[in-house]
């Protein structure tokens, strides 16, 4: 190696170091900054991309509508690849730019950031996912699993199955298999399903699938042997379409399969199209909503101006709507914080936390935002960080998703004690004292 090359190499290294220093220096103007943790690469990208498109488009739409009382939003995307360590790096990097709130978009990252958020004073918003016990705001002061948790999703699926069978008492002796992604995400519904199994006397079989989920032959062999009455699919990314293909190959009726909402979007069934006909999935409130006012607004104010993110024809699909709704709920938290702490000001993380805790999205408000028919009103409180436990089931008819159930509500009688007990265990492990009513006012 020549000296010149050595010099070149060391210059590169020096440039790298200075680049990192400079990275911190991009100061933000007087705008509310939102970090966007997303994954557009890796095994979960097919589902991560539409979510991110919806999320970013909604921020752009809010700016096009004039911001919140004149406060505009700026954002920066950071690619995590669904990797916890990368997510933490993204979080730390974007935090230093004054993050208002963060949506980790992965269960692993949610767990890691949950430990950091109280010190950093940044609310962790997990719309429809995250750790289920964090619905208890008296222990998890900074977590907001708004609009439902995995336990709500699992409970809604059980209710839908019971309805199909003609009541919970008919479930006695039935066999239900949970095919799940073998990670904290996939294991989340297990406590609830076990609780339900004990209550109604059905047999629950747990069939883990190793991440990322392309290898499922052994799992479906077990399904073929057991011939369960229902299969609950707790997958994500390529695992979903693989599972449906395997079900097709095994001859397992798709009508008897119920997916979690991460397993109920277009990318999961598109490749199988006809083969996935009859496959059901739970939706936390919304489904595919191409006719909604929100989609029309996005089209008119963002996409037609050439500022849209992602392909136009995917606007309004299930995960796109999920991204938009996630952004909307957190941004409405900013609005509610401004109502109390001063309109037209940039809010701090602590103020937004208050806003998220006192969210009151009534039907007229939702209608004004373009979410009419997409979702039901949500209001949160100090104790209840979830706000609402509504869900619906939609079914793939071979070409599109269609709702096939009424509104279902997660059974509070089962979920609440579970949340309380698990949150209490967390508080005990961490030696946390639950918040007092006085702390709720702040």
């Amino acid at each position, binding site marked *: 190696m020549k000296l010149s090359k050595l010099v070149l190499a060391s210059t590169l290294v020096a440039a790298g170091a200075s680049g990192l220093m400079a*990275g*911190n220096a991009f100061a933000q103007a007087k705008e509310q900054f939102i970090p966007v943790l997303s994954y557009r690469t890796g095994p979960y990208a097919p589902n991560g991309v539409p979510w991110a498109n919806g999320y970013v488009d909604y921020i752009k739409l809010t700016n096009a509508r004039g911001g919140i009382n004149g406060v505009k939003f700026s954002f920066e995307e950071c690619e995590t690849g669904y990797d916890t360590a990368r997510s*933490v790096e993204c979080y730390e990097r974007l935090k*230093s730019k004054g993050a208002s709130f963060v949506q980790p978009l992965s269960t692993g990252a949610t*767990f*890691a950031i949950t*430990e950091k958020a109280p010190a950093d004073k940044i609310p962790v918003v997990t719309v429809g996912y995250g750790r289920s016990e964090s619905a208890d705001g008296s222990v998890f002061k900074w977590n907001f699993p708004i609009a439902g948790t995995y336990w709500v999703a699992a409970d809604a699926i059980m209710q839908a199955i019971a309805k199909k069978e003609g009541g919970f008492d008919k479930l006695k002796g039935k066999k239900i298999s949970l095919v799940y992604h073998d*990670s*904290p995400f996939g294991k989340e519904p297990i406590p609830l399903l076990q609780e339900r199994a004990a209550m109604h006397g059905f047999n629950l079989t747990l069939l883990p699938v*190793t991440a990322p989920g392309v290898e499922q032959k052994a799992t479906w062999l077990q399904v073929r042997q057991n011939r369960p009455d229902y299969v609950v699919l707790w997958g994500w990314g390529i695992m979903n379409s693989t599972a449906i293909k395997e079900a097709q190959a095994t001859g397992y009726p798709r009508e008897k399969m119920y997916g979690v909402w991460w397993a109920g979007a277009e990318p999961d069934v598109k490749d199988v199209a006809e083969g996935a006909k009859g496959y059901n999935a739970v939706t936390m409130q919304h489904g595919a909503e191409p006719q909604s006012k929100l989609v029309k607004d996005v089209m008119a104010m963002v996409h037609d101006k050439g500022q849209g993110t992602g392909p136009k024809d995917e606007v309004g699909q299930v995960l796109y709507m999920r991204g938009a709704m996630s952004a909307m709920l957190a941004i409405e938290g900013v609005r509610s914080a401004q109502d109390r702490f001063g309109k037209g000001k940039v809010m701090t993380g602590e103020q937004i936390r208050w806003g998220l805790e006192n969210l009151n999205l009534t039907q007229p408000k939702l209608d004004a935002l373009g979410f009419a028919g997409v979702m039901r009103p949500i209001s949160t409180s100090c104790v209840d960080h979830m706000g609402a436990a509504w869900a619906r089931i939609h079914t793939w008819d071979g070409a599109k998703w269609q709702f096939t159930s009424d509104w279902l509500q997660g059974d509070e009688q089962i979920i609440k004690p579970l949340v309380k007990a698990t949150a209490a265990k967390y508080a005990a492990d961490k030696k946390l004292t639950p918040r007092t009513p006085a702390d709720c006012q702040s």
Partner: protein
Amino acid sequence: MFYRENGQFKTTYRADQQIFPILQDRMAITALLLVGFALVPMLASDYLFRAILIPFLIFSLAAVGVNILVGFCGQISLGSGAFMAVGAYAAYNFFVRIEGMPLLLALLLGGVSSMLFGMVFGLPSLRVKGLYLAVATLAAQFFADWMFLRVQWFTNNSPSGSVSVSNLQVFGLSLESPLAKYIFCLSLLVVIALLAKNLVRGAVGREWMAIRDMDVAAAVIGIRPMYAKLSAFAVSSFIVGVAGALWGFIYLGAWEPAAFSVDQSFRLLFMVIIGGMGSIMGSFFGAAFIVVLPIFLSQFLPALAGLFGVEISTAVVSHAELMVFGGLIVWFLIVEPHGLAKLWSIGKQKLRLWPFPH
């Protein structure tokens, strides 16, 4: 001119045997330590600590461990991620199950558990070597993945299988601030790296190197292959285990088995290959390369594109990042197959003659 050892005579065995026999090296290392312990804490931002320096220190420690096994003893291992996982989960169990367990002791016990685990999975090394051993150590990786996913006891019966720690303290000092975490990791790294350096200079290290260079010849001159190989596995997995415990406790705070997946094993192996096989110094270079470069590229590429007025999306950036990263690895290996540490020593060699090369 500045880096020349003319006139530095060693008159005692002691002087001849020190780690850094050249005065300039000693000065450089002292300066480096001063920078690490005093200057960096004054200058670095929160982000730099949390997202770059701490992972760099922890990965350096892990790379030192892997280097002992792969670089010094020649036992190629793809199970380093598993050793990290065992360290992390064992430390976690000691920490939460035993009331009043000091953090430092828990971390070291995590290392000890990982050591035992490493020795068990090092047993095949007595029969198979090279690529075959690499495949055999993959078993350790898959076993650990399975164990921490399925055996609930290890995760303290957490329903989701994710564990977390908080309220960390060392000698009564809180380890919450990034600065405290940084100093803690740095101190641990300095101590362990120094011990490792001395180990590889000593009789044990020479046995390892003899086994690496030609195990039959080593056995003929009286080195016991079993002792040498298993001790390399033990020391290596102890260090990697401590690094794993730090990764979980200090960097992530809450983790799941995926944090120690087979990717982590590959990453550690790359660090050793790029940094320089059989060089403690090289481990640091390798860790810096693997930790800093992707982050740097993800910031640098959009800025570079911005100069030309092009806005590129996150997906493009992250794909380009992977391509540039892969390209650089290939380039490095072609240009300098002995890794960055070799570049370093070439640089030193040049400096000895500078400014009058032959």
